[in-house]
Every structure is written in structure tokens, then in C-alpha cells.
């Protein structure tokens, strides 16, 4: 029975928008799915100890490249998105290669990536003549906003299915990495780089591969977000806040579990929406304040994340499978 559970759940998810059509909840679900995909993309490298605080930069590259190519060069997002993903991949190589080659890890790596997302934001602001700077940027509507060619869909149901499909692909990629030799190589690297190198692992190459993969997936998330909202601004997709949010959500949801980032997305987005609605126009910034406090408390008291802690509880009662060998403690 439990073998069919994921399939049944999947089917239920696919059928959902046909049964329940209220636009606002669908909108929230779409947002959750897109961000879940983004967070999953981060965790593809984050789970191996490659903590990047700069993924907001990749999202920004994905979003803006796609939108700019469409507006200025009439390049359809079908081509624009792959190009944006390639751009993000290239950026990842440029920044990550010297880091890995010269053994810049841990705190150093986190700070370099943090600076990266800050710099991407600066570039977007500096090129304001093209990008609109902090005021944001809008891709031009094509044929009334409903066009497969322009990857613009008027119907929320369509977007829901697109987001669901991409999210599922993200999980698939996560699982493929999980079952690959790359995973063992990266886990060895995260435990002891020298020992791994001595055992024949091409440390720099492996780390670079996973980083590029993660960056490209994140760029896709950014592009999708832009296409859905039909608007991007530097602080909604790039910058330090987004980068931190990504890491928070994954840590809250559970970094070593495939659905962890999704759980994290559900929690953080619903929380943000609830706070935004209840504080509403009364006070600007209160929602982020509560959000920030809760997140610090999470880190201090639940370092394994919610899903990770729940699984631990499940394990101790024999309900969940034991952790995979080699999975380091959070």
C-alpha cells in the first residue's frame, strides 16, 4: 500500500486544479511549487556541505536574462530560458572554480557567494537603463498574455501544472543525484577532501559539476517566477535576503531529505502570507520581523530542520527508514 502512496498523492496533486479552482489558493500553490523547486535546487549542493549564500544571484540571472532577451531581442523564452540557465552556469563556474581550485570552503565560500548575490543586485541596479533598476522589470505581454511561444499563460490552472511538472523534475534530479556515484564522491569530499583526492576523486571537478547543476536549476526557477508574475525586481529574486531565505527554508524543512525543501517552502511561504495578511497595511516590516525571529529560534532549537527532526522521531519509533550511511549530522 505504502508503495502506491506517492503515486496516489501525485495524482491527487495533478487533479487538484480541476477540482478546486479558487484563484488565490492556486496562486499560493504555484508560488510554493516554484520556490520549492528553487529550494530543492539549492539543496542539491547544500546537502554536501557546499553552503552557498548566493543563489539569489542565480535566480536573478535566470529571471532577468530571460526577460531582457525577450523584450530587447524578441527571443522566445523557449530559447531564452536555456540561455539564461547557461549564463548562470557560466557565472557559477567563474566564481566557484577558483574557490574550489584553491580550497576555499566553509565560511570563506559562504561569504564569497554572499558577496556574489550582492554584486548581482548591484549589476541589476547599475544597468537601470536596461533593467529598470530597483523599480523592477516587466516582460512584454504577447498576444494578450496567453501564448505558448512566449511561455505566458493566462490560466492559473496551466501555470499550476507547469509548476508542478518542474517541481517534479526537480525532485527527480535530486533523486538521480542521490543515487549516483557523484553523491558518494561529494559525501567523501565533504568529510575529508584530502582523503577523497587520495582515493582518486577529482575534487574540483565533482564540486564544480554539482554547483553548475544547482545554479542552472535555480536560474530556471528564477525565469519561471518572472514568467508567472510577469514582473521581477532585484529584491524579489536576487540579493542577500532571497539567498538567506533559500537556505533557511531548506534547513527548516530538512536538508538531507528530498521533500525537505518543499516542506520548508510550504512552511515559510504560508507563514509569510499569514503574517502579511494579519499585519497587512497596519505596519510595514512587522511580518519580516516575526519571520526573522522565528527563523532564528528554529535554528537554535531545531538544527535538523522540521522534516529532519520528525524523521528522527519516526526512526526512534521504528516508523521511518534509518539514515543513509555517511549522512553527517546537521
Amino acid at each position: 500500500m505504502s508503495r502506491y502512496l506517492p503515486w496516489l498523492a501525485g495524482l491527487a496533486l495533478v487533479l487538484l486544479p480541476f477540482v478546486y479552482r479558487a484563484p488565490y489558493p492556486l496562486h499560493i500553490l504555484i508560488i510554493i511549487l516554484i520556490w520549492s523547486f528553487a529550494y530543492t535546487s539549492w539543496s542539491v549542493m547544500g546537502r554536501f556541505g557546499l553552503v552557498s549564500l548566493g543563489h539569489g544571484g542565480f535566480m536573478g540571472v535566470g529571471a532577468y536574462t530571460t526577460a531582457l532577451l525577450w523584450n530587447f531581442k524578441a527571443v522566445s523564452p523557449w530559447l531564452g530560458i536555456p540561455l539564461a540557465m547557461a549564463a548562470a552556469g557560466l557565472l557559477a563556474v567563474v566564481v566557484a572554480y577558483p574557490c574550489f581550485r584553491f580550497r576555499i570552503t566553509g565560511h570563506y565560500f559562504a561569504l564569497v557567494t554572499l558577496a556574489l548575490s550582492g554584486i548581482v543586485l548591484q549589476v541589476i541596479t547599475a544597468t537601470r537603463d536596461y533593467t529598470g533598476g530597483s523599480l523592477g522589470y516587466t516582460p512584454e505581454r504577447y498576444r494578450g498574455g496567453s501564448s505558448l511561444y512566449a511561455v505566458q499563460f493566462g490560466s492559473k490552472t496551466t501555470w499550476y501544472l507547469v509548476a508542478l511538472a518542474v517541481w517534479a523534475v526537480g525532485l527527480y534530479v535530486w533523486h538521480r543525484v542521490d543515487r549516483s556515484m557523484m553523491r558518494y564522491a561529494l559525501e567523501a569530499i565533504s568529510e575529508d577532501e584530502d582523503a577523497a583526492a587520495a582515493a582518486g576523486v577529482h575534487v574540483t571537478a565533482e564540486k564544480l559539476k554539482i554547483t553548475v547543476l544547482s545554479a542552472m536549476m535555480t536560474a530556471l526557477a528564477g525565469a519561471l517566477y518572472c514568467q508567472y508574475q510577469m514582473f521581477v525586481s532585484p529584491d524579489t529574486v536576487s540579493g542577500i535576503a532571497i539567498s538567506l531565505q533559500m537556505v533557511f527554508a531548506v534547513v527548516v524543512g530538512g536538508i538531507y531529505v528530498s521533500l525537505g525543501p518543499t516542506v520548508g517552502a510550504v512552511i515559510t511561504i504560508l507563514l509569510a502570507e499569514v503574517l502579511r495578511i494579519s499585519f497587512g497595511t497596519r505596519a510595514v516590516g512587522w511580518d519580516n520581523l516575526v519571520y526573522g525571529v522565528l527563523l532564528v529560534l528554529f535554528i537554535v532549537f531545531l538544527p535538523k530542520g522540521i522534516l529532519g527532526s520528525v524523521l528522527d522521531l519516526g526512526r526512534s519509533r521504528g516508523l521511518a527508514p534509518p539514515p543513509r550511511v555517511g549522512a553527517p549530522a546537521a
Partner: protein
Amino acid sequence: MAIFDVFLLEAVINGVLLGGVLALLSLGLNLIFGVIDVVWICYAELVMFGMYGMYFLYTVYHWPILLAAAASIAGVAVMGVLLHLLVIAPLLGSAPINQLLATGGVLFFLQSVATVLFGVEFRNLGLRLPVLKAAGMFVSYSRLLAFAVALVGMVAVYLFLQRTYVGAAIRAIAQDRQIMTLMGVDTRRIYVVTSALGGALAGLASCLLVLLYDVHPFVGLTFGPITFLICVLGGLGNFGGGFVAAFVFAEIISLGGLYLDLEWGYVFAFAFFIVMMFVRPEGLMARRS
């Protein structure tokens, strides 16, 4: 051609002056990392609060400026201690990612508190200091003052570290943490002292920065990343390296701002950083990673 040179020289000089303040900023961050082995991601937000402190005490409540500065410095020092006791200390044993994230959460928190308390408008200290004119160049007095005070601050910290027992303990902890108790050093107390010192340096930097820039809740995003880059390029925990790197970055920013928008200065600085990683990785060699 002569005019061109003057502007260039002016930018170079302004770069040096800016470098002093950036060096002070990176000193605080380096101190915390070298001693406690944690990075305060929210360091720039502490500075932001110090700047608000100066604004309110001096501009709104008309305190004498030196008193306002002293109070701001003390206030941020207290914030540093609270940050350590409430957030860092409980996480000292856990994975570095948790420590980074926790201070990241505090970053959110501080930005939000500032937004709620002060609103998003830009505030200016309102202190108009004269501009000196020399050899066709304009150098603002506030920049000179900031530079001078930053230097004095760094010398004071240097003397403290070299001449006092606590200063020696702070230097020692960074080199061998485990045996400190053998010499009667209570490491927890040293951490608190270091946090206070790091906070005080942030406070001092904020007093200087508020002379030069407007304050708003997100001002930390402007110089935060640069401070991190400076520390990494100089070597986290390496005070001398950070000092040199600060001036190098300041020059790049100043010169970049001369020919293009200010933001491009930061972009060039980052590009320079990437290039440096290839060219002189020893400059980035961590004593611990």
C-alpha cells in the same frame, strides 16, 4: 589633461580615506572570526543601528556630538554582547551552517526592526562639514575626519591587543583554543569581551559612516558584501591582510565611481576579487576554513 589628472588624484585620495573606514569595519569582523570562529553576517546591520543611534541622538535630540558618538558606540557594543549570548553561544558546538544562518536571521530581524521603528526613508545626519580645497582638488573634511578617527581606533585596538593581558588572551585564543583554561582563562568571558569589542568597532565605524552617507534600514546591503570580500581577500582572521585589502578595495571602488556609476565600483571590486583568487591564492589561505 591637467584637469583629468586632478580628478584622478582626488579619486585616489578619496579612496585612501574610504579605505580607512573599510579597514576599521573589517577589523571588527576579523576579530570576531579570529577569536570565536563565527562570522556575523549581520555585522553591517549592527553598523546600521549605530548610524541610526547617531542620527537620533545628535540630529533629533540634539545631544552633543561626542556624547552621541560615545552612546552609539556603547549601544552597539551591547548589541554585540547580546548577539553573542543569545544567538552565537548556544550554537558554538553546532555546524557552521547553523551559525551562519542564525546571524542571517538576525540580519532579517534587524532590518525589519529598523523598518518598523524608523521607516524606510533616508535620513541624513545634517552635519555640514567644510570642504577643503587644495591644488584644485576638493576633499571633504568629513572624509578626513573619518579617516583620522579610524586610524586612531585601529591603533587603540592594536595597543589593547599587544599590551594588555586580555588582549594577549584574545590573540592566543585564535591560535590555540583548547589550552586556554590551563592558563586560567575563562574562554566564555573572552568571547563576551571580544563580542563587545567587535560591537564597539562597528559602533565606531557607524559614527564615521554616518558623516559620509545617509542611513536607511537597508544601508547594510551596500557595504556588507564589500566588508566580507575584504576579510576573505585578506584572510579571515588576518588583521594585516584585511588592512591592506581594505585600501585596495576602496581604491577600486573610488576609481570605478569616478568613471562610471558607483555600483560599477562594487562590481569591479568583485571582479578584482575573483581575479585575485586566481593570481594570489595565498592571500586567501585560511588558518581555518
